[in-house]
């Protein structure tokens, strides 16, 4: 509608019968009329187009969100990481302080970061977290790829059932699902009891408080995050490409390696990062299922906050973790851009 008249608002040009221009006295409703017309979405789009505020307006919403809920907290945490722990509420020193000579002083303590390097607990926790996340991501990919592939190739009705089943566990509490694994894995748990009653083993296998239990917990919990992006990629593949490969003399396995696998690379990268990034910082699963002698960085972080009440060190740990994760995020971005460039 807005397009047909050039997008300009012209009084009296719309709204049924033509109305003669009148004064406020004779037609007191006239300004109201204008007002309601301006509220019509068609008017908005015309206005937005004419005044070219559309793009900034649209991008302003996510921008505002990110600034409010990401940038501001990040800056606060970043600030605290340069502070010093004190016995107070909040338990850290303000960075800016007035001295007695009315000088505004900015005090930045780099000791927190220094501390991360001196105490081997942090380095080993970081490395352990990265290792656990990497191994879990690998097994998620190993399990998730065939599943995503199978779902993408299933008939439409089956496909919807499978997707439903994959999303279904999200409807129960995450904590509950991890607890359920304790019941399965513990020494007198379901798995050990079954294996013992079948006579396959004679003593219970220790699975709780091991890396194995953490891998199981993470792979189980994060598998949907691997499957869904992979599925959405594989589902878009043109099957005639595989027919073309077969026609050109390529056996199915080779066609998979040369066609399907490279074309699904963006899905692999997206799924792997969606698993890897949260797995690095995972707190609940290692706390419930994992080792007690080797902590993951998420646990270290929470201990610093809640046990030690050392907010500055905890903030430094968080910032270091973020820096550590920026690298995979950048890889992800690069792949996303490349995929967009293909379209």
């Amino acid at each position, binding site marked *: 509608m807005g397009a047909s008249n050039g997008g300009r608002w012209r009084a009296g040009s719309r709204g049924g019968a033509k109305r003669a221009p009148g004064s406020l006295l004779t037609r007191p409703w006239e300004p109201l009329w204008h007002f309601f017309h301006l509220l019509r979405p068609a008017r908005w789009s015309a206005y937005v187009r004419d005044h070219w505020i559309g793009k900034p307006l649209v991008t302003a919403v996510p921008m505002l969100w990110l600034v409010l809920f990401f940038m501001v907290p990040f800056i606060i945490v970043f600030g605290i990481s340069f502070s010093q722990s004190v016995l107070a509420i909040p338990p850290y020193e303000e960075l800016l302080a007035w001295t007695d000579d009315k000088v505004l002083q900015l005090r930045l303590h780099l000791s927190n970061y220094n501390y991360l390097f001196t105490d081997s607990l942090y380095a080993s926790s970081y490395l352990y977290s990265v290792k656990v996340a990497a191994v879990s991501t690998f097994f998620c990919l190993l399990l998730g790829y065939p599943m995503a592939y199978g779902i993408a190739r299933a008939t439409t009705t089956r496909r919807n059932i499978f997707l439903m089943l994959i999303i279904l566990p999200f409807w129960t509490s995450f904590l509950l699902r991890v607890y359920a694994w304790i019941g399965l894995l513990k020494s007198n748990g379901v798995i050990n009891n079954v294996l013992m009653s079948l006579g396959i083993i004679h003593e219970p296998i220790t699975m709780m408080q091991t890396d194995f239990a953490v891998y199981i917990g993470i792979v189980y919990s994060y598998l949907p995050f691997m499957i869904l992006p992979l599925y959405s990629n594989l589902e878009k593949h043109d099957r*005639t490409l595989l027919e*073309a*490969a077969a026609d*050109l003399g390529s*056996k199915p396995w080779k066609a998979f390696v040369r066609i399907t696998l490279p074309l699904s690379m963006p899905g692999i990268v997206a799924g792997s990062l969606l698993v890897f990034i949260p797995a690095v910082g995972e707190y609940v699963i290692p706390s419930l299922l994992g080792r007690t002698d080797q902590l993951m960085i998420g646990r270290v972080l929470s201990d610093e906050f809640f046990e030690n009440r050392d907010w500055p060190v905890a903030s430094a740990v968080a910032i270091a973790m973020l820096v550590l994760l920026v690298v995979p995020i950048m890889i992800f971005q690069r792949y996303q851009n490349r995929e967009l460039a293909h379209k």
Partner: protein
Amino acid sequence: MAETRTKTPEPWLDPHAQAYIRVENVTKRFGNFVAVNNVSLKIYKGEIFCLLGGSGCGKTTLLRMLAGFEQPSAGAVYIDGQDMAGIPPYERPVNMMFQSYALFPHMTVAGNVAFGLEQEKIRREEINRRVAEILDIVKLGEYAKRKPHQLSGGQRQRVALARALVKRPKLLLLDEPLGALDRKLREHTQFELLGIQEKLGVTFVVVTHDQEEAMTLSSRVGVMNRGEIVQVGTPRQIYEFPASRFVADFIGSVNLFEGQLTEDEQDHVRVKCDELNVPVYVDHGMSAPPLALCWVAVRPEKIELGRERPAATDNWAHGVIHDIAYMGDMTVFVVKLDSGRQVRVMQANRTRKPEEQFAWDEAVYLSWDASSPVVGIG
């Protein structure tokens, strides 16, 4: 184009010739649906054989069975004397050009073309040489490093062709090869295809719904309808001597009249049509029971338009011009006969004389030669 090709021998007329492809009583069912119904075909080396038919007639299914993507539910396919049952696509001496081209989007043009050769044990230098050679033939040498999405539709089509041809297949299957191209490009590519086919001596089996494409490309055409081959012949045979009412109606435009055989002699037939003023006389005999109901087909371009009443007692009709479509080289008239039946007449615009032009609502006589009509039973 088909005319210039008659210099090549016509193996289908030789009873001793060995067919390169034999399709024997092939049926393909998808559930309850019969896509291809008991089709038998012989295609000879060096032919360009077109499978022509409307959508859903089974032509693509038949092609996919030649490529090995579908297995026949019954019957057998032989290529070069070898039974193809159970042989997967990647082991058949056949290559296909897909309707969508199916180019690998993550590979360059050269990568796409090289793909087929990389599946064989060929040295890299040899692969590079053959890729360069075939890209030269399809005139894409300078585009070797581009990705498919950086090419135009016509260029993509040529990459697909090069990719299929570089394997030097004995048989190339083409699924609607010119479908996605605009008219100018189609004509150009058509001739390019013919040139390449002659140069490399490959047998082509082309699937198309476009009769013009089938006519210009093919040595022979197999017309398909509802999963069956209804007629096989050269383009000229199919057009001038359609074997059935379906073929007459499907190929080109035609005026079909219902009638009854009144005379059926050795050298002529006479048909009485209610919609025409006088009987139709055809100068060749046919064998049918007397007074059989039949159909008569007359092509629009074989009808003469005139203002004088013809002296003959057969083969004319009287009507009024109802519509005129001027197309430059020719004009199509829709003439409303006295019976109310509308008939298409096509006249070449041979002169620019105004007195030879017809106007709307003008009364005209339609006449045609006794050799023109096609008569069929049923």
